[in-house]
């Protein structure tokens, strides 16, 4: 063989060897976890709770640094993840249906293709609540009131175009009634108005309700089965209404992540989920867990986008 071809093949072998070994050693430095919300919020708490476990299961003494990049309901953070280098050293939190909904009602600089879907960790189903002072304590009473007076039932929500809004649209369809959405700027003012009886009902998530069973009537939970956080709440399915919806929170990385990095991350998430200490910690901080890994997560994301599109085309929220 000519000198040239030997040199080229030698170079190729060396490159493969070094890149191979670099990848095999992932993670070699600290990993940034971008949280698109402010410190202290639900997504942030989830990220901080999971970080020590991920560090343990990723191995190599790596550390995960949580960076808050709040703004635009998580859009700024998620866009930063989409734009980052796909080397496995930047991952971020991901909220559904919000992140996909933003591609419809705003000009988002990302799409479903922009991410490698790692794991969805939290599934917080919606619940319908009414204040204890209200006459409405069951679904049937609610539906009756709603059908009697179109728009007469006011519904407190924490934002426009979030999981609670989606749920309202589904509710409207399934019960064949018109509700008046009252979008607040955050779950705190929404709950305040709800508990004070200023609105007829509210749509929140089960994690927000577990501590306030004495102040609120919970009419049902929008999941396939009863939640183990509050197993006395009947599902809507049991009551004859096919309503399943919730807030989903997980983690993504930029698109085109190398396969071995991806599989390392996925296995770390899997092991974290199986760790009983992790489950206890999530319980304590009020996060109901349900794991959806890798490709399943991607399928879930596509499902959510389809749902969002359907709602956007029939009853756009903006």
């Amino acid at each position, binding site marked *: 063989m000519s000198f040239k071809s030997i040199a080229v093949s030698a170079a190729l072998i060396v490159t493969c060897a070094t890149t191979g070994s670099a990848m095999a050693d992932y993670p070699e430095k600290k990993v940034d976890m971008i949280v698109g919300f402010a410190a202290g919020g639900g997504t942030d708490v989830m990220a901080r709770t999971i970080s020590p476990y991920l560090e343990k299961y990723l191995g190599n003494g790596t550390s995960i640094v949580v960076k808050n990049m709040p703004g*635009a309901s998580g859009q700024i953070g998620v866009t930063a993840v989409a734009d980052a280098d796909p080397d496995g050293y930047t991952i971020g939190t991901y909220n559904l249906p919000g992140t996909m909904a933003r591609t419809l009602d705003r000009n988002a600089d990302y799409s479903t293709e922009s991410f490698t879907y790692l794991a969805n960790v939290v599934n917080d189903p919606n619940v319908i609540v009414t204040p204890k002072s209200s006459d409405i304590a069951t679904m049937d009473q609610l539906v009756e009131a709603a059908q009697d007076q179109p728009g007469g039932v006011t519904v407190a929500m924490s934002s426009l175009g979030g999981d609670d809004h989606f749920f309202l649209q589904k509710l409207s369809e399934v019960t064949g009634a018109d509700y008046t959405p009252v*979008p607040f700027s955050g779950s705190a003012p929404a709950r305040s108005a709800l508990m004070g009886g200023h609105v007829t009902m509210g749509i929140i998530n089960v994690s927000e309700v577990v501590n306030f069973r004495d102040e609120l009537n919970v009419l049902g939970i929008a999941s396939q089965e009863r939640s183990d956080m509050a197993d006395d709440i009947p599902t809507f399915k049991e009551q004859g209404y096919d309503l399943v919806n919730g807030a989903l929170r997980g983690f993504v990385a930029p698109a085109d992540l190398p396969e071995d990095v991806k599989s390392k991350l996925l296995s770390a998430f899997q092991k974290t989920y199986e760790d009983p200490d992790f489950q206890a910690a999530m319980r304590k901080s009020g996060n109901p867990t349900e794991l959806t890994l890798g490709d399943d997560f991607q399928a879930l994301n596509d499902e959510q986008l389809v749902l969002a599109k359907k709602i956007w085309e029939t009853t756009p929220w903006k």
Partner: protein
Amino acid sequence: MYENLINALPAVLSLGNLLAVVIGVIAGICVGALPGLSATMAISVLIPFTFGMDPLVALGMMAGIYNGAMYGGSIPAVLLRIPGTPAAVATSFDGYPMAQQGRGGYALQVAVVSSSLGGIASALVLMLLAPPLAKVTLLFGPSEIFWVAVFGMSAIVFLLGGDVIKGLISAAFGVFISLIGIDTITGYDRYTFGHLELLDGINIVVLLVGLYALPPAVALLEEVRDLDTANTGRLNTTSIWQAIPGMLKYWKTWIRSSVIGVFVGILPGAGGSMAAFLSYNEARRASKNPQDWGKGEPEGVAASETSNNADTAAALIPALTLGIPGTAVAAVMLGGLLIHGLQPGPMLFRDNPDIVFGFMWQFLFAAILLIALGGALATNSFAQVLRLPRPLLGAIILALIFIGVYSINGRMFDVYLMMGFGLIGYFMDKLKFPLPPVVLGLILGGFAEQNLRLALRIGGGDWSILASSVASKIIIAMILIVVFMPLISRGIRRLKARPDAG
């Protein structure tokens, strides 16, 4: 419940926890004194650190920082006309003129004593009246909150300064700025020009630093001559314990401002700056010499500082009982609690009484410690800062401003925005446009509009919902009385005078 309170005390008095409070107060004063750095940011940064710590240590530091920062903000507000935190804007109205007259030290002493008293009142209210006051929070739905905001806006009348047209322009400008961002009710974005970062609206710290902090920093560099810093530099302080008796005449203001501060604290969405403005305004209305206000009246400093500390613990009342934080800082603190597995609600009081009541005690101690730590710290350390040559001070403040604004969200966009506001603020100062109405407009404008539209949405477009509840009626009555009372009393006085004159 009271026995729970007493049982929690020994843990709080342990060395580690007390030390945490002391460190928190000192750190809080320093953070509050640096323009741009706010209590919210300091506590957000603290949260990850507290992960491994004992809950009471973490909470003690947070309580200390919150109280300390609400006082610390007044230091540059008095000495440099740069509010260290948004809540200290109203302190600068009378504090800075006092400093210019050579009474800066006294102003700081009034500030520290008032802050301490406000914090103590707040902590006591949290400890003793949490459950009933939480119910008061729930009485306030969108229409009631709207009327409270309107009440606050009536303070604009006093803040217009000499020139009504310019004052109104400032106010309208402030209200307009508060509308930039996404309209939460319809989802349309207003005047964001495609910038994602503006969707959440313009952060008050960015506006405040731009309008209030950048122009004085520029002025420090601009002034050609070594201005006589003797007046502002020399703080002329006697020991604080000797100064206190002279302050006792402000007791009415202290009580009134504490009540206002607590009340604003329990309302979700309203914060320290609104409390300070409202209480400044009310104290001025009630005083015998309102025309002296704005020129160096210590009672103005007392009013503002008392209420911005009074809303600290009060904001935690709805937060701990209902999970509804009364201010942004309380929201971050709730997150901190959550990380330790402490979820708000009645079970928190049942399952972890030592921690919850311990937390309340820590607020009390932090407030009390303010006098001891703040008095000495402020007059000795920070005053030395003024002895620095002005160009150096200006350069340092520029760097600090950058840090403060950048750290809010970790992006340069906020810094550019702040520079823009700085330019506007510079010209507003030179052209004699008053700045306080801008701040008031920003705090209350969007807030009032949002609540108004929420109320209308609930009422189905019927405007009468605004006056339907008892609470609304009471607030409306208060607004009418307070706004028309001066006119009525003047009319009555004129009627009385006429028989004599005629």
